[in-house]
């Protein structure tokens, strides 16, 4: 936009001022004038005006009052106040509330006013640019999320068919018919499926808003344990839930959090441990739920403790995906929960989480 296209509205009850303003600035800007606030408002309502200058002292309404009245409906317009006398209180108040951008003393100096308009216009453009950028970014983000979701879905559909075929092979007793090929196909497919499901969890955690439902922790944890422990019959689970009050929270996220922690407690057991065990303690009160998940597994090296919640962090020895605990942390962030961990390579790991009760 060349500067002559910049629209400036000047409101003043003194016609002389309007005329001289027009004479001074008409070459540089597209000038609109009004001799009262109500006339000014009519112009604003019909044309998009980025810069509005108003006189403070007008018969029915002061400049500050006028700016206040339009600051909600036309928040983008840059408002400059002209004032002949120093009405400091009204001015200070208006500036503090962000109702005006600049004030210029009357009689104005052409240069000062010109600079004020120029700066106001720059600030206006910055504001608009920033908003456009934010909208653009939100759109890109949204598209990216939807892309991840549909890709994950499209990838999982045929993969699920592969896993289904492997199941049939097992049922028809052909699993061992080709050396270890079927079991290799199965373990690759399961690994890929795991990544896809984690990606979906991550997407859903980012996307969905918190939805509160009643949660029965005994029920939820029993379900999760049976889902995750079906591949592992050696681990002995001890689940103690003390829930006497109703707990309301985000079911999906809490399920994701506990599911990942329980699955880790099973996955990172010591192979040669004769009594593998996982102890889960839950205590619910009116304010929050306190959950600890303790295992006697391989533990976490001290120098790794700080990094375990970082996306794609994996230890060299035990190949995880680097997603599970990252998703746990992200999900907890969304529902104002906390997690802490204590671990050593002798006795195992304890994760402790707290989640506020929304009931």
């Amino acid at each position, binding site marked *: 936009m060349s500067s002559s296209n910049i629209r400036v509205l000047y409101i003043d009850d003194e016609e002389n001022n309007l005329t001289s303003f027009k004479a001074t600035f008409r070459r540089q800007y597209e000038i609109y004038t009004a001799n009262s606030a109500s006339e000014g408002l009519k112009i604003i309502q019909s044309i998009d005006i980025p810069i509005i200058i108003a006189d403070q002292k007008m018969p029915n309404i002061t400049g500050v009052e006028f700016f206040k009245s339009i600051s909600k409906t036309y928040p983008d317009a840059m408002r400059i106040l002209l004032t002949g006398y120093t009405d400091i209180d009204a001015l200070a108040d208006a500036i503090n509330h962000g109702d005006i951008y600049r004030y210029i003393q009357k009689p104005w100096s052409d240069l000062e006013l010109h600079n004020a308009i120029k700066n106001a216009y720059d600030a206006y453009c910055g504001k608009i640019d920033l908003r456009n950028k934010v909208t653009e970014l939100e759109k890109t983000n949204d598209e990216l999320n939807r892309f991840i979701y549909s890709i*994950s*879905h499209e990838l*999982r*559909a*045929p993969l*699920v*068919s592969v*896993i*289904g*075929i492997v*199941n*049939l092979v097992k*049922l*028809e007793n052909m699993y061992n018919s080709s050396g270890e090929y079927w079991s290799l196909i199965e373990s690759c497919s399961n690994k890929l499926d795991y990544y896809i499901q984690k990606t*979906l969890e991550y997407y*859903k955690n980012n996307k*969905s808003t918190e*939805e509160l439902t009643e949660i029965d922790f005994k029920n939820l944890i029993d379900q999760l344990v049976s889902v995750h422990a079906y591949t592992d019959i050696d681990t002995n689970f001890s689940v103690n839930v003390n829930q006497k009050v109703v707990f309301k929270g985000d*079911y*999906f996220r809490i399920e994701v959090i506990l599911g990942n922690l329980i699955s880790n407690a099973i996955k990172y057991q010591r192979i040669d441990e004769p009594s593998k065990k996982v102890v889960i303690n839950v205590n619910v009160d009116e304010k929050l739920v306190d959950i600890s998940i303790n295992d006697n597994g391989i533990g976490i090296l001290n120098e790794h403790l700080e990094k375990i919640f970082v996306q794609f962090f994996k230890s060299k020895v035990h190949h995880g995906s680097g997603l599970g605990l990252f998703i746990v942390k992200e999900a907890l962030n969304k529902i104002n929960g906390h997690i802490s961990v204590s671990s050593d390579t002798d006795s195992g790991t304890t994760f402790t989480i707290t989640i506020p009760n929304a009931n």
Partner: protein
Amino acid sequence: MQTRFKRVMLIDDNEIDLKINSKLISLTKLVDEIIICSSGDEALNFLNNQLENKKLIPTFILLDIQMPEMDGFEFLMHYKKLSKSITDNCTIAMLSSTLDFGDIKKAEANPHVIKLLKKPLTTNELLALLG
């Protein structure tokens, strides 16, 4: 236990999954007959044709959610308008390869649907539903 004739209808646009699931169901030996439909439309046509001759009405339907044109939930909208003589003796389980929380709620809210299952289907789940 009552040994009622069991006829299962599979509705899925994915040919391979139809093959896998029908094989899996026949391996359980719990079912006498399997009807295969590759779209919701085809299934509705089939059901409507059974109005006179009630011989081939399914007792159980496995319905995929994600299908082009008519998805699982749209199929249910049409299904509930069918004659009670068809729907009264039939239960439905829905299938999906990705479980969306919204889908779970939507499926649970539907009186005809007894369960939403995540693919791949397992024998245990089938036994629980058909046994």
